[in-house]
C-alpha cells in the first residue's frame, strides 16, 4: 500500500493527529507520586509557557519537565486558576515546541482524543466523542463553559490536551474539578487565564464585596423565576464596596444574577469574571421574604494592603 492510501485510512488519521500535537506535549513532575501532562504554547510576546492542571503541581519551584525531544528542563510556577484547575509554568528554556489551537468549541459528537504523557518515553492517547458543552452536572445554566467527553483519562492525563482529528488542541483535560467526572477546559479560557497570569500575576475577577453562605430557601420563596431551592445569604459587606453602595443589607439572600440562579458560592464566582468589571449586574434578592432586584457594578478585586 502506498503512503497516500495508508494515510487516507481514518484510523491512521487519528494517529497523525497525535503525532502533530506530540512535540508540544510534556511531562510535568510536580507532586510526589504520579506525574501529570502539560502543553507548551506560544503567547503574545512570542515566549512559550507550559500549562497543566493545578492539582498536578504541588511544588512551586524546580519543577521537572520532560519534553518530547527527550530534554529535561526546569520550570517555575507563575500562577494558578483554582476555579478551572489550571496552572501556568515558565521554563528557563525558550525553544519549546508548541501546540496549535482549535479556538472554536467542538460540536457535540465531534471525535476527539485525550493525549497524555505521564511517562516521558512516549505519549499515550484515548479516543472519545464530545458528549456535551456547558454544565451538565448542575441544574443551573450559569457557570463557565466546559467540554464534556467520554475519553478515558488514564493515570497522569490531567493537564494534557484534548485534540481534534487535525491535531489541534480544543482544551486541557482535568479530573480535578468535578469529582465524578473528567472535563476539558476550552482552550480559549486557557489562553485568557494565561494572559491574565502573565500580565497581572493572577486571574483578574470582578468583586462586589460580600461574604456569602449558601442557604436553603424557605418553601414559599422558591421557584418564582426558576427552579432553585437555595440562595446565598449575605453574611458580610465590605465598607465602601459596590455591594455597600448598591444598598445591599446583611441578611439579604442573593437568589439570581442576570437571571441565572445562584445556588452556591461557585455560581457567584463564575458570574464575576473579569469581563464584568464595570458592567452593572442585576441581582435578584430576597429581603424579608420579598423578591427585589438590586443592580451592582463589580470592580476589580482590591489587593490586600500590606
Amino acid at each position, binding site marked *: 500500500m502506498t503512503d497516500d492510501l495508508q494515510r487516507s485510512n481514518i484510523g491512521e488519521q487519528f494517529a497523525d493527529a497525535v503525532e502533530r500535537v506530540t512535540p508540544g506535549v510534556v511531562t510535568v513532575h510536580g507532586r510526589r507520586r504520579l506525574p501529570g501532562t502539560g502543553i507548551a504554547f506560544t503567547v503574545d510576546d512570542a515566549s512559550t509557557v507550559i500549562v497543566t492542571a*493545578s*492539582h498536578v503541581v*504541588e511544588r*512551586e519551584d524546580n519543577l521537572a519537565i520532560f519534553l518530547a525531544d527527550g530534554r529535561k528542563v526546569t520550570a517555575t*510556577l*507563575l*500562577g*494558578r*486558576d*483554582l476555579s478551572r*484547575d489550571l496552572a501556568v509554568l515558565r521554563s528557563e528554556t525558550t525553544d519549546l515546541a508548541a501546540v496549535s489551537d482549535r479556538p472554536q468549541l467542538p460540536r457535540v459528537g465531534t471525535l476527539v482524543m485525550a493525549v497524555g504523557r505521564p511517562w516521558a518515553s512516549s505519549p499515550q492517547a484515548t479516543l472519545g466523542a464530545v458528549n456535551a458543552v456547558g454544565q451538565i*452536572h448542575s441544574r443551573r445554566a450559569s457557570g463557565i463553559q466546559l467540554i464534556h467527553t467520554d475519553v478515558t483519562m488514564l493515570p497522569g492525563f490531567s493537564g494534557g490536551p484534548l485534540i481534534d482529528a487535525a491535531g489541534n488542541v480544543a482544551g486541557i483535560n482535568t479530573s*480535578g474539578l468535578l*469529582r*465524578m467526572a473528567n472535563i476539558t477546559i476550552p482552550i480559549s479560557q486557557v489562553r485568557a487565564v494565561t494572559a491574565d*497570569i502573565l500580565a497581572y*500575576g*493572577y*486571574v483578574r475577577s470582578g*468583586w*462586589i*464585596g*460580600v*461574604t*456569602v*453562605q*449558601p442557604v*436553603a430557601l424557605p418553601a414559599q420563596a422558591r421557584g418564582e423565576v426558576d427552579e432553585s431551592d437555595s440562595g446565598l445569604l449575605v*453574611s*458580610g459587606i*465590605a465598607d465602601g464596596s459596590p455591594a455597600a453602595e448598591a444598598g445591599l443589607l446583611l441578611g439579604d439572600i442573593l437568589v439570581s444574577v442576570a437571571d441565572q440562579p445562584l445556588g*452556591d*458560592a*461557585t455560581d*457567584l*464566582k463564575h458570574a*464575576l469574571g473579569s469581563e464584568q468589571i464595570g458592567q452593572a449586574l442585576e441581582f435578584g434578592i430576597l429581603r424579608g421574604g420579598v423578591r427585589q432586584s438590586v443592580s451592582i457594578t463589580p470592580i476589580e*478585586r482590591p*489587593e*490586600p494592603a*500590606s
Partner: protein
Amino acid sequence: MPSTTTATRTATLTPVDSPTPSTSNVSRIPMPGMARRVIGIVAAYPSLRAGLGALIQQDPRFVASAISPDTILAWSQISTSAAIAGMDAVLVDSRDLAPETLDAMVQIAHSENVPLLWLAHNGRLPGAATTNAPGGIVSSRADGDTLIAAIGAVRAGLRVYDPDLELEAETGSPGAHVATAPMTGAVQSLSPREREVLELVASGLPNKAIARTLGISDHTVKFHVSSVLAKLDAGSRTEAVTIASRTGILSL
C-alpha cells in the same frame, strides 16, 4: 413519636434489576430467600451519594440508601433514627461534611449500634470522635471491590483499616490530625494576616508572589498557609479555598 414536618431527603436508590455478579467473587451471589442488606450512604452531594451507591450495588447482596447531611442533623435533633436502625452499615464520605454532621453520625450509629465505614480524604478524618467510632476507615480512592469487602468486614463486627491511608496522609497517620474546633470557631480564629494570605491563595498566587505583595518573607507565607490549612482542616490550597468560599470567609 415525633412526626417529621419536613420531608426527609432519604432516597432509596433503585436496585439493579439483573445485577452482573463480579467474576472475582462467586461467594457474593445471595442465597435464595435472603433479603438484600440496606447500606446507608452519607455524603455531602447527591452526585457523590449516587456514585457510591452504584459502587455498593455492584454486589447483589446490598441495596444502597442515600442520606443527605441535612437529614442526619435533623435526626440527631429530634432523637429519632429508626431508619438507620434497619441498616446493616453506613458508608460515610467525610468530604465537605461539617464537624456537627460527623458528630451526629457517630452518635446515631452508637445509639442504634450500626457500624460505620468512613471514607477518608488525604489520609485524614476531621474530628476526634470519628477515630473512636466503631467500624473502619478506607481511603476515598478505594474501588468498588474494596468498599464491598470493607462493608462486609464491618458488618461482621471487624475493624477495618486501609494501609493506603498512610501513604496519603501528609502527617503519617489518619488519627494524627484532629480538628476539634467546630467549623464556625475555626472561621473566627483566622487572624487578619491569615485572611489576607488566604485571599491571595484564592487568587492563585504562588507563595513567592504572596510574600512580595505583603512585604513578608517566603518562609512566613508558608507558615501562614500551613496555619490556614490546619485551621480550615483542608488538605490542599484548592480545598482551603472551597471551604472558605462555602463558609463565607472569602469575599466575592
